[in-house]
């Protein structure tokens, strides 16, 4: 498949997504100077006095989301895997900044340290040692039938979902704030290490302990899959002899 076509189609898809979401956002009646409720949602997160204005928040969010989209598109579209990996770093970094804007400072730090740091180190490590194939046919090259079926499903989904998306109106009160019991105003401590720790060792204690099982299975699985190939085949021969002895 032609690379330019890929980029164009991905950008079109991204633009369509943005268009749908901004139409949906514009739908909601707003009494506070044309600011979309989305911005108020983010602004609502910032209960402290030194908050950004809703409009600034909205634009920060838009810019970051745009950067993430571009980064994501280049990650999957770039021919050079190192470039792709670096674009992914950028995307993850933007995610970290969004967490920061939401005052989830601990998550932001972990996002940058673990994802943009450790995981990307692993990616770059793999990319560097595997090397980049010079003429590798990129994906999306399956048969026409699977493309048609996939496309039909996508269209069906879009047709079913988009009318709802367009017509939905968020409930907004007289002051133009979204009425949602789900989003109580947050304290100034929201999202810092102490807050996360308090939750982690009370309500989320069981998931925390269960994570250790998840990490355990990841380690054991990694060791099992990357096992040494038996060069001498001692064990296999022994097993064969044992089964012959049984028989």
């Amino acid at each position, binding site marked *: 498949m032609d690379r330019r076509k890929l980029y164009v189609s991905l950008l079109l898809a991204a633009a369509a997504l943005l268009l749908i979401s901004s139409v949906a956002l514009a739908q909601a009646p707003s009494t506070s100077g044309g600011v979309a409720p989305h911005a108020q949602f983010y602004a609502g997160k910032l209960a402290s006095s030194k908050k950004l204005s809703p409009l600034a928040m909205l634009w920060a969010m838009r810019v970051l989301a745009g950067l993430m989209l571009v980064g994501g598109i280049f990650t999957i579209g770039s021919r050079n895997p190192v470039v792709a990996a670096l674009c992914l770093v950028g995307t993850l970094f933007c995610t970290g900044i969004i967490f920061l804007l939401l005052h989830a400072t601990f998550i932001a730090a972990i996002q940058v340290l673990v994802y943009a740091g450790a995981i990307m180190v692993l990616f770059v490590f793999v990319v560097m040692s595997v090397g980049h194939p010079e003429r590798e046919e990129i994906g999306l090259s399956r048969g026409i039938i699977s493309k048609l079926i996939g496309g039909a499903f996508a269209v069906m*989904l879009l047709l079913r979902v988009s009318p709802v998306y367009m*017509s*939905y109106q968020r409930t907004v009160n007289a002051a133009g704030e979204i009425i949602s019991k789900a989003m109580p105003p947050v304290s100034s401590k929201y999202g810092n290490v102490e807050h996360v720790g308090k939750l982690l060792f009370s309500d989320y204690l*069981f998931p925390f302990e269960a994570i250790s099982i998840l990490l355990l299975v990841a380690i054991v699985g990694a060791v099992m899959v990357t096992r040494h190939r038996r060069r001498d085949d001692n064990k296999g021969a022994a097993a064969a002899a*044992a*089964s012959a002895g049984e028989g």
Partner: protein
Amino acid sequence: MSSAFKMADFSFAAPIIFVALWACVVLLASAFSTKSSKLGPLTAFGFVIGLVITGYFWTALEQPRMSVFSGMLVLDRFSLFLDMIFLLAGLLTSLVAHGYVEEHGFAESEFYAVIALSVVGMMLMGHAGDFIIVVIGLETMSLGVYSLVASWTDKRKSTEAGLKYFVMGAVASGFLVYGIALLYGATGSTRLLVITSRAAAHIGDPLYIIGLFMVFGALAFKVALVPFHMWTPDAYEGAPTPITGFMAAAVKTAGFGLLVRAVSTIFSGESFAYGSTGWINIAWMLSMLTMTVGNVLALRQTNIKRMLAYSSIAHAGYIMLGVIAIPVLGLDPSAVLLYLLQYAVTTIGAFGVVAWVGRRDAENTGLEQWAGLGARKPAAALAMTIFMLSLGGIPPTAGFFAKLYLFKSAMGHPSLLILVVIAAINSVISIFYYLKPIVAMYFRDAGGEPIAEPMRSSSLSVAITLAAIIVFLLGMVPGSALEMAIKSTIGG
């Protein structure tokens, strides 16, 4: 620090904690013992104890629903019944794997520990009261199964299957987490019941609906509904045979268990189920497609493993029919549970026979290699016949009764009746290919072809015998199992 939970909560999570600890014991044993010959039975023993504990909890549970760890885990008879299916599947799989691994000599002893750890993940999924636990359980299960699929590192196909399954599974997990994020964005909670109680305020909310569909799609992938089934044949064929059985039985059960729980909580609102953006229509179509495509493609297979892989897709279609019937007719999940139980045992038994027939360097999964097996190994051929009849839904096996019960309970609604008719036609079609191995074993002459010479493994024989007896008993005297399934309601 005032804790939001009581230490007693740990005792209510005893089945899960026990299996997790047992998995650690097996892992420790595998790290320190040079011989792996005892670990299969050791693991199986742990599953037996786990079954006893879970059975005790099932009988002793007083409330219809208990919520422990501030709502993270749910304890009801439904989840405990699912636990029993997982543990039974784990028990049979570790016995089958014991013979298989010894014969082919491919895996280190941690193989069994990973099986046990995946079972822990499945149990977490079954007990999940919060999406956090869903994700942790699903990932624990999936990471374990990915590595089990790829554990035959000397076999290219196994590695390829593992990689395919991993990549596709990672995409599905991504969809699941994204869906959960959207649901959280809409309702402000990850707790299933809280989301459900707030759902009424989100009728027509795109965040909620898209979130629901993403969760639904991810689960459809895990249980291999058409068109999310593409990975299934390759992964099932390339995986070591006992693991194929484990995937078809336990992973599918875990996925459907979660789907049933979702259907009775976050999917349950009228406006989310019906209408142009309702999931019921889509599920109806997926169910119809799944059973038809699975059966039609299975007809053409000559490799038994691949045939059983497509058969498992078709069975997912039948089970989906049962899942749809739950909200439409207001049923309890007993039909789905009973079907999952018998399907798990039957399919592990069938893959057990497939594993048993192969020798080192000769897996004998081609149908022609099974010629004349009936005369040479009558017991194994009989067991395989029972499993095939059960999969085809022919009396007097478990498959017949479970299918009958499932179809009959779903018939109360006109649109479901159409689906039941389609399913019945599909069952008839499926008999053609389920008869193929039977015909090969009994009525085809071996001629000059190399004949399958089964391995000798007592644990494999035990597993196959056990599975055959369960399948037979469930078919002949289904009363007590049915009663148990009916009592296993979703609490709250």
